[in-house]
């Protein structure tokens, strides 16, 4: 067990635990989007979970820090908040803020972060850039909303954990990066309607299960069949 200080509060956790995980377990909230409990090498891509660790020159994402005995951590310094607010504003500058019509309303991580950082949902200084098309309906069972997506990659990771191989992946580059569906020659053979792990893990409602009537092919469960085991 390692003892260490977070915002002057002493915390105990196993040596080598991911700092963000340890803080969340002890009820200390640090804004985060891309972290999934149990990851051994977090992607550290959302750049929200910054903290200051004594001895480091600048704030570091707490998902990249391993707990060590005696480390001193601050989660609310001005530098940390500056980076978190900027990262949040950047995410919101490409977000279609339409909470009333979003299935994620009231359980959305972005709303939670906005409240926590006391930051507006619409960034004042930055222009808004939205992607076209607004919805990717190519998947037989899922709809993808690129302007809700924060590209945290939780879905990609979770699908990979669940199915040994991810059927979701990042595609395109830079600002145009989106989540796409790959990995199976025929997506309609997948058992997405029963799994929906990606939908559950999405922090913002970017992945939504198609209603049965709108499915482009019937799911195996619709036909009362046992799903075929995945060949991976």
């Amino acid at each position: 067990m390692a003892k260490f200080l977070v915002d002057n509060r002493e915390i105990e956790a196993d040596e080598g635990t991911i700092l963000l995980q340890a803080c969340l377990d002890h009820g200390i909230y640090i804004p985060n989007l891309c972290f999934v409990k149990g990851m051994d090498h977090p992607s550290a891509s959302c750049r929200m979970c910054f903290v200051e660790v004594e001895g480091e020159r600048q704030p570091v994402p707490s998902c990249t820090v391993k707990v060590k005995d005696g480390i001193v951590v601050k989660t609310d310094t001005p530098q940390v908040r500056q980076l978190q607010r900027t990262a949040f504003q950047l995410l919101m500058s490409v977000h279609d803020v339409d909470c009333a019509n979003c299935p994620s309303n009231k359980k959305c991580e972005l709303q939670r972060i906005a409240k926590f950082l006391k930051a507006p949902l619409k960034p004042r200084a930055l222009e808004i850039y939205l992607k076209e098309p607004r919805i990717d309906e190519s998947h037989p069972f899922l709809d993808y909303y690129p302007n809700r997506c924060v590209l945290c990659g939780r879905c990609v990771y979770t699908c990979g954990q669940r199915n040994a191989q991810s059927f979701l992946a990042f595609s395109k580059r830079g600002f145009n990066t989106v989540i796409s569906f790959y990995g199976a020659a025929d997506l309609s053979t997948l058992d997405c309607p029963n799994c929906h792990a990606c939908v559950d893990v999405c922090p913002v409602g970017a992945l939504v299960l198609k209603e049965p009537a709108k499915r482009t092919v019937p799911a195996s469960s619709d036909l009362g069949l046992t799903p075929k085991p995945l060949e991976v």
Partner: protein
Amino acid sequence: MNRMGNKDPDQVFDVIYKEAERRNNEFLADPAPKIHLGMATCCVASGALETKKGFEEAFAEYHVEARIHTVGCMGHCYAGPFVIIDHPASGFPPIMYNQVDAGKARMLVKSFLVDGDPQLEYVYGAMQENDMLPSVMEFSRFNKEKRVILEKCGVIDPEDIYDYIAHGGYSSLVKALKLQPEAVIQEIQKSGLRGRGGAGFPTGRKWEFARQAPGQEKVVICNADEGDPGAYMDRLILESNPHQVIEGLAIAAHAVGARKAVIYVRAEYPLAVKTVTKAIHQATRLGLLGRHILGTGFDLEIDVFRGSGAFVCGEETALIQSIEGYRGMPQHRPPYPAIKGLFGYPTVINNVKTLASVTPIIDHGADWYRQIGTENTPGTAIFSVVGNVVHAGLVEIPMGVTLRSLIFDICGGIPNNKKFKAVQIGGPSGGCLSEEFLDTPIDFDSLTATGAMMGSGGMVVMDENSCMVEVSRYFLDFTQKESCGKCTFCRVGTHHLLKILERITKGEGRDGDIELLETLARDIKAGSLCGLGKTAPNPVLTSIRYFRKEYEAHIYEKRCPALMCRSMIGYYIDLEKCARGCDACVAVCPVDAIFTTRNRKKGIDQQLCVKCGECMAACPPQYDAVRRVSPPSLVPYVEKPPQEEKEKADGEISGG
């Protein structure tokens, strides 16, 4: 002990060296004239293939016995295609000729090889000191260089391993194999060699980490995923002297204990891929790679991996992902690749130039290397100096030479009597430095202190007609396209920077834009995951720091001081200078914006003008009447006669 694994590498190598020496002596003893012809991509692009054909046809036509010796690149790109004619029977030393096209090749064969006249007016310089012709070593472009990495580039045939061996090649590997791996690492540490890929991390330390990392299998990777716009040092080295890199890679593998090595080269470098693949085959055939190298117990297999051209894959963790078959996205470090890299094995990733430096260091020793360059950064730096500079090309200089000396002495300064404005160092990760920094010595620490960085060696020189806002926009356009899209700051942040810069160059800048750029840029630097994002704002930050007035002129006065941003300039014709009856500009205007005034001079219809500048280029120099101004409101009003009057005027002219 393995029967194959206990021979003396000296003895085994001696056989190979003797063969190389024999071939070289045979080549030298041949009385026929020799034409050394540069055939790297840059020379081929400037017409070296036609030149070669020109020589061959001329040989046949004039019944000349001569040999063409294809070499790589000498780095003198402003002079390409270049040839060196070695014609001992003429009594002249070997002579270099520049810009030799097929016609010139034919002429040289006839007059020099047949008639013995070297055509003095076409000579660039002799390759040796002599009392007949000026030697190239009298030019500072040659004598201020210090060639350590490029020493054999442009001298040897890159496709002939024996040529390399005859020039001293692979003797460093023999030396290294006789040393304990730790001793090799110690020698590299003592030399003070720092990684030439950009960050300048001490190479010896990197090797030591990997050597000490637990695990039997280790990997070394040569990073040739060169991607900075305008930089081509790595390509040139692989095309001109691949064996020096392969030898360095083998020494690195021996030092860290690796039996697997990968050369990661971008697929856009087809000639480099071909040359290096052939070189690996040749070295393997001679027992310099593969199993039981030179009869010792050291095995090494080198694979060539072709990257698909993503800039971010030059970042080491993304490079590893890409070889493993994943999308090239950087991973956060630690663990560093030296501890846990390719497929989980401890991995050393070194730049082409770093590995090419290892070979001479082992050959001449660390003390020799330390004498070159500065205390903190020993050795040499290679820059591809491009842009508004007279002698553009590849230059290898000892560290510590000032920017002024590099740009003005070695590269000949700014062409067309224009003034120096800025130099962009380090590509999209670097910065723009103004005139006051010209006396900065070139080394990792001094350049980093200015806000630019050494980078991998791209250097763009800009004259007074370059707009710094536009230059920043250009580099941001590049980085935001090349961002992998993984982390928020880089993916979205650089896009915002670009959009703001685009607005400013279009004359739509707003109050507060400079401050917004600065805060965003600082946060992107601090918050990004990998080196690409952490350095992408450098061009913006440095250009704001050193050229703030230019940003202010764009935003508050809607004026581009360099007269470059199209939306903020206007063209007009100076009626004092315009020649009556001349219509050179009328013919080139793509939109028919030029009209004839009442007194038969020319005016530009500002409504129609698309500001292409063709009229300015076409106006005969003796008149030089076309003016470019910013803001466009400075364009004086010139009355355009109504259509009927124009026709009438035309009629009068044709009528006599």
